């Protein structure tokens, strides 16, 4: 990656009246990156990218585009474009006219525009007849695709997407994710993407930023965010997780609440250690938790009662209530279905190499 980020944000603060939506966000987005922002509803994601495209003024802070300050540059002079969460389609134009709008602004000849619009319709799996359809006659997902097509037609240096695929079905979403990713690879443009689908975030992004209440909580590549979250919040946000409160004992080992700890060898080597008296959170993802037979042994062991089983497509989830009253989730593929009956006593185990310790949480 080049040394200078394409977008550099410093201490971005946004207040709406007395309400602070962004509490000082610092962010560097690299040239050509696929950067994803995730976060709970209302955490300020949309506000952040609305500020970046110039649709909202910052209350404080600096934004530079390749080193040039652009806080005061109006939206139409920034080389950015956004797919709105609210879509913001032009109601007085047909589907085709909406898509062609940025091309028309650039005075491209009508035949080229039309060709490009039809190309995009195809890319987004909309029939060519939709070219003349009115926006008000499109279904929710169709509208969303038109909005996406319009932004792609504009083809700016940096593209912002605010939940662009949220109204689409699973298959179409997969297809379009692939198309977008391919487009990103092919053009080398910078993409900034907001999504609620963790899968989408993990598959597509170079880096992911997690926002929480107007602050950025962690920025890292997908695996790191998934496997080594910096906080309980991040851990919990990125899919199902089991968290156990732990405390350091005098021998720099751990004492767990509701979990039996039998780490073999040097716990310090695998990072699973705490200073005496220090508290922390032990994290393990449900897919790393195994059902143990009575004779099996493991680095960490949890005992409990099987409460529930859910089928989630290709996976099955089991909810086990521990003796400490905590619910532990275990995930298996259908193939490895666990045969225990709800209500039965079970023993769960997981290994030191699959846990992550969040300190001080």
């Amino acid at each position, binding site marked *: 990656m080049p040394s200078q980020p394409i977008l550099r944000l410093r201490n971005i603060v946004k207040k709406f009246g007395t309400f602070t939506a962004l509490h000082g966000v610092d962010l560097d987005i690299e040239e050509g990156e696929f950067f994803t922002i995730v976060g709970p509803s209302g955490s300020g994601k949309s506000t952040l990218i609305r500020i970046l495209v110039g*649709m909202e003024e910052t209350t404080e802070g600096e934004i530079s585009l390749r080193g040039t300050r652009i806080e005061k540059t109006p939206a139409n002079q920034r080389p950015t474009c956004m797919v709105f969460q609210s879509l913001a389609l032009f109601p007085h134009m047909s589907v085709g006219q909406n898509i062609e709008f940025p091309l028309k602004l650039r005075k491209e000849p009508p035949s080229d525009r039309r060709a490009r619009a039809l190309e995009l319709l195809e890319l987004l799996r909309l029939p060519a007849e939709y070219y003349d359809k009115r926006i008000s006659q499109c279904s929710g997902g169709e509208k969303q695709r038109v909005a996406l097509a319009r932004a792609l037609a504009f083809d700016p240096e940096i593209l912002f997407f605010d939940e662009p695929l949220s109204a689409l079905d699973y298959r179409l979403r997969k297809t379009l994710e692939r198309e977008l990713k391919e487009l990103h690879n092919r053009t080398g443009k910078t993409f900034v993407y907001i999504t609620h689908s963790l899968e989408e975030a993990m598959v597509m992004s170079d880096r992911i930023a997690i926002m929480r209440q107007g602050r950025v909580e962690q920025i890292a590549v997908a695996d790191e965010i998934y496997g080594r979250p910096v906080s309980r919040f991040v851990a919990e946000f990125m899919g199902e997780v089991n968290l156990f409160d732990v405390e350091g004992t005098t021998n720099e080992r751990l004492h767990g609440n509701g979990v039996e700890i039998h780490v073999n060898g040097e716990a310090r080597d695998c990072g699973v250690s705490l200073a005496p008296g220090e508290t922390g959170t032990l994290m393990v993802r449900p897919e790393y938790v195994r059902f143990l037979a009575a004779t099996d042994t493991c680095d960490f062991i949890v005992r409990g009662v099987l409460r529930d089983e859910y089928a989630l497509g290709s996976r099955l989830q089991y909810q086990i209530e521990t003796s400490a009253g905590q619910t532990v989730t275990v995930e298996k593929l259908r193939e490895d279905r666990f045969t225990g009956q709800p209500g039965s006593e079970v023993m769960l185990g997981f290994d030191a190499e699959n846990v992550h310790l969040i300190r001080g949480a």
Partner: protein
Amino acid sequence: MPASRSTRIVLLVYGLVTIFFLYLPLVSVGFASISRSRYLSFPIRQYSTKWYGSALASDNVRQILMTSLKIAVIVTVISMVVAFFGALAFARYHWRFRTTFQKLILLPIFFPQTVLGLALLMWFNSIGVIPTWKTAIVAHLVWIAPIATLIVAIRAYGFDPALEEAARDMGADTWTILREITLPLLMPGIVSAGLFAFLLSWGNFPLSLFTTGADSTLPEWLYAKMVSGYSPLVPTLGVMSVVASFLVILAAFLISWVLRARRRARAARN
């Protein structure tokens, strides 16, 4: 996409200039009202406020103002109601004769008003109605209600029928929908239409001329005075209208402010 500071300032100045432009002639009218002489020549050298005294003392003036006010208020109220529904028929509902309706409603506006007034007077006469200020209300409505309808229709065009559907889905009947959803959403348009209705009625001369019978309205009286008997009483009444309207608007604001404060207080108590 917030407007830049400079745009804001430029537009603000532009707004002030427009207001200045609107009031400039009224300044002259103001001078005329306090001039001793009825033939103005600026700079004015001799002032007098006697015309204000005589305007306030005059029975005629009081009666004329009352008639004008009565007509304008009633026309306004009826226009607002009629325009609300008319605008829905014009812009919101898709019904069979809508396009015809959209054209027919324009016809009265195309009519030269004097001629409309005269023809209306003949109509009233032929059905045995003796013209008074009440017939003037009908005459004003013929011309003003379509205009008010057009103004409300602007808003009715822009408003999302899904909101009505949502309310209906939750069990609201048509009346409730109109009251709770349609009316509040069209309110800015209705208020605007009401203002228009009031002012058009208040200032109307050609229709009033033929349809008020023996009652006179302010514009009739002023027009006659200007044609055949100008005195500074004319500008005096002009100035007094502005001042009175200012007081009325001020009072309206105070009342609505008090009402809102009370409602808020009541809400806070709950």
